[in-house]
């Protein structure tokens, strides 16, 4: 699986880039050979994406030079980079929802005659590319917006693959892909390698990197830490280089003794997505919720929180016999339920506003007098929570949008800690977050449970669930398949439960 060629097609020297308040890159060297997969790993905010974006012309470096095939290279824009054969599939989706899959793939050069799109040709060509990435069962005339997020990601990748290029940068391509889709992507990456394309591969998943990459470069705080052949590295080597310290992986929490029932859900229903879900969570307990994508985990939590209106079901608090009425998030918060949404940028935070204003938002009454903001008090509250959670920001006045993913997530947690709810639902809190911040969040979960809070922890990462939770509830096709205690679970049992309902009633 080693790259046959050793011809260096891209040589970057001393690349530097700073954003206000942050040195994103400082003197980074990077080489890419033809026909190799060169992985960039590092915590969020380490500068991986920034480096790839500079190479692809999305950003401009402040310092350093690049050479492409021995020629000086500096891309003024993404389009300019593409004319030099450098392409990037970005982390965020850039599809046009109302256009069809085929139109999105060929958006740059739709086959046409006299200005009229030749749909036969277009769809034909699209089917060819879609088969390569395993989207064969999708009609190329489907509007992109009706696809799931994973499929949309595949369309984005398909669009990237469809065009001739010599360098392809993939930024977290597998973030929302299933295992099957990931396999297909890897297959395509190998094909491109064979054709001599140099691939820059950014990922948080170290296993993935070790599987697909020929060389691995580790970045930390905007500096290149090391570059090595993937064969010579183990995952603990990489983690050590990424965080600069060793991290204990197994069993992060010693379970305490759970107290009384804090929340009991009975017969919750929401269309086909949530079917007759019942469960309970105790004070001082971390309940994990596992399941495949589309198993109804997020939908269950949103219905329980009142974000979407449930068709039926009761929620009981603190062992009460009478259910509480939750018809809106407002009702839920007033009953002491917190929900930290999966989409922290869109729905969890006010990105253009300062850290201070995000933290105080839910309790403005307590940092004001007669409707008049008491800003000093608000500042001291914000500072307190920034310190407690060690949010890395230049000050509480910095806008949240400028923070890295992990620090943004900490601001979300700070905001809900300040609101002080008894039941906290974390939906994928570690998604797109670097390793160091993940561990800080696990610690927070544990601390909250130890303080007598009831925690519901929804995650796609079984390893983290098994490291942190007391019990794991596995959902499958909208129902609760099985609930495991700590001493009874195993990866295999959980996966089997997650698949159980799928086998039973679909296909």
């Amino acid at each position, binding site marked *: 699986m080693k790259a046959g060629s050793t011809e260096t097609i891209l040589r970057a020297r001393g690349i530097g880039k700073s954003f206000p308040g942050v040195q994103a890159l400082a003197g980074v060297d990077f080489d890419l050979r033809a026909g190799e997969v060169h992985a960039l790993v590092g915590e969020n905010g380490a500068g991986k994406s920034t480096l790839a974006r500079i190479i692809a012309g999305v950003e401009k470096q402040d310092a350093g030079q690049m050479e492409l095939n021995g020629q000086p290279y500096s891309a003024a824009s993404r389009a300019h980079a593409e004319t030099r054969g450098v392409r990037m599939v970005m982390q965020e989706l850039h599809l046009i929802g109302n256009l069809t899959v085929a139109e999105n793939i060929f958006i740059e050069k739709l086959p046409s005659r006299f200005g009229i799109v030749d749909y036969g040709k277009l769809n034909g060509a699209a089917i060819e590319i879609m088969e390569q990435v395993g989207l064969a069962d999708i009609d190329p005339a489907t509007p992109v917006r009706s696809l799931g997020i994973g499929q949309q990601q595949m369309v984005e990748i398909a669009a990237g693959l469809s065009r001739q290029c010599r360098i392809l940068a993939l930024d977290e391509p597998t973030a929302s892909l299933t295992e099957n889709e990931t396999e297909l992507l890897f297959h395509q990456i190998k094909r491109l390698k064979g054709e001599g394309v140099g691939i820059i591969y950014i990922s948080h998943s170290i296993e993935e990197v070790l599987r697909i990459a020929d060389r691995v470069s580790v970045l930390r705080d905007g500096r290149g830490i090391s570059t090595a052949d993937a064969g010579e590295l183990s995952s603990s080597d990489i983690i050590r280089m990424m965080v600069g310290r060793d991290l204990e992986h197994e069993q992060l929490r010693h379970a305490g003794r759970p107290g009384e029932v804090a929340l009991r859900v009975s017969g919750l229903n929401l269309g086909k997505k949530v079917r007759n879900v019942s469960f309970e969570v105790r004070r001082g307990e971390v309940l994990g919720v596992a399941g495949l994508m589309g198993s109804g985990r997020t939908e269950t939590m949103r219905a329980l929180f009142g974000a979407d209106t449930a068709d039926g079901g009761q929620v009981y608090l603190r062992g009460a016999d009478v259910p509480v009425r939750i018809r809106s998030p407002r009702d839920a918060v007033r009953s002491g339920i917190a929900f930290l949404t999966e989409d922290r940028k869109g729905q969890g935070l006010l990105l253009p506003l300062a850290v201070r*204003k995000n933290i105080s938002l*839910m309790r403005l009454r307590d940092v004001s007098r007669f409707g008049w903001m008491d800003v*000093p008090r608000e500042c001291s509250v914000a500072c307190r929570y920034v310190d407690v959670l060690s949010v890395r920001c230049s000050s509480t006045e910095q806008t949240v949008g400028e923070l890295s993913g992990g620090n943004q997530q900490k601001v979300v947690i700070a905001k809900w800690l300040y609101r002080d709810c008894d039941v906290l639902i974390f939906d994928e809190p570690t998604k797109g977050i670097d390793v160091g911040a993940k561990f800080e969040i696990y610690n927070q979960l544990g601390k909250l449970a130890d303080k007598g809070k009831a925690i519901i922890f929804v995650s796609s990462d079984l390893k983290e669930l098994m490291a942190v939770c007391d019990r794991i509830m596995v959902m499958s096709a909208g129902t609760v398949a099985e609930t495991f205690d700590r001493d009874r679970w195993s990866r295999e049992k959980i996966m089997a439960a997650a698949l159980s309902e799928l086998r039973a009633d679909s296909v």
Partner: protein
Amino acid sequence: MCGAKPIRYPLYALRSTLYAINRGDNLMAITENERRGMPSLPAFVTDYLGMAMALTVLLVIFGFSAGNFFTLTNFRTIANQVSDTTIVAVGMTFVLIIAGIDLSVGSVMALSGAVLGTCMVRFGLPLAVAIVACLVAGIVCGLANGLVVTRWRLPPFIVTLGMLEVARGVAHLVTGSQTKYIGGAVGVIAGRGLLIPFIVAVIIVILGQLVLSRTVFGRYIVAVGTSEEAVRLSGIDPRPIKLGVFALCGFLTAIAAVISTARMEAADPNAGAGLELRAIAAVVIGGTSLMGGRGSVVSSFFGVLIIAVLEAGLSQMGVGEPTKRVITGCVIIAAVILDQYRHRIRKTAT
């Protein structure tokens, strides 16, 4: 990490003071930690002083090119003319910040004025009662807009477009399509050549800016405009906030109606035509985003002044109405382009 420290350096002091005024904070509330995160002085200059400079440049140009521009009468005329637009622009700023729009303000002003005129002329009610009726009419229109927008989740553009027609129709019904001459009875308000309407407008601008940057309501407005869904998922119901903003806009429009009716000494059912576009133009020149979440009342006031000075100056130079409109239109677009550049420069990490 967060202890308050005295301000040592003069430049810091200037910067901190501006910062404090801008945020509506008191100076000692700014900690060392915050000071590091403060926008640099140039950002402030472009923020408020930029608008003031644009206005000054206009004044200087017209001062030299139009012979009798710098006269007391001229300024008095401009000041009186801008008061109603200014008051409406304050309401419009709030509406735009919650990512809404209110196209009905012109008609609502006519309707409120019609109520005022009819109360006085036809029913012979005392001025105070008539003013209350007028303000109530404005608030009712605003509430109606807000209720429909929040209850049926309709786009404010459509709802207020409907209200634009409805209120205009009602204004004609109330007055029987007649202009109601109320005479000099309200001279108290119009001020007879004094600058009372202008002073009222300035007070409303200051109050509006304070509400926006210093109150809980103001914070909610910015939050709702930034992401309504994030606010809802934080357990805060965004609907009363939006309702409040539309009602406030209606209320301010009615105040503008009182002032303009007093100045004209008549309630004209055709008053306020095109007012909505003038107000929106002024607010946009002031850098408020039509996408919501960002805006400033003081800047909107500058926007009103820039348009008014431009128009007055051009007509003193003998420029005809059509040319004036072309120039005003270009200035609006240029202002927004400039604003975009300013934000692109300040836009930071991805």
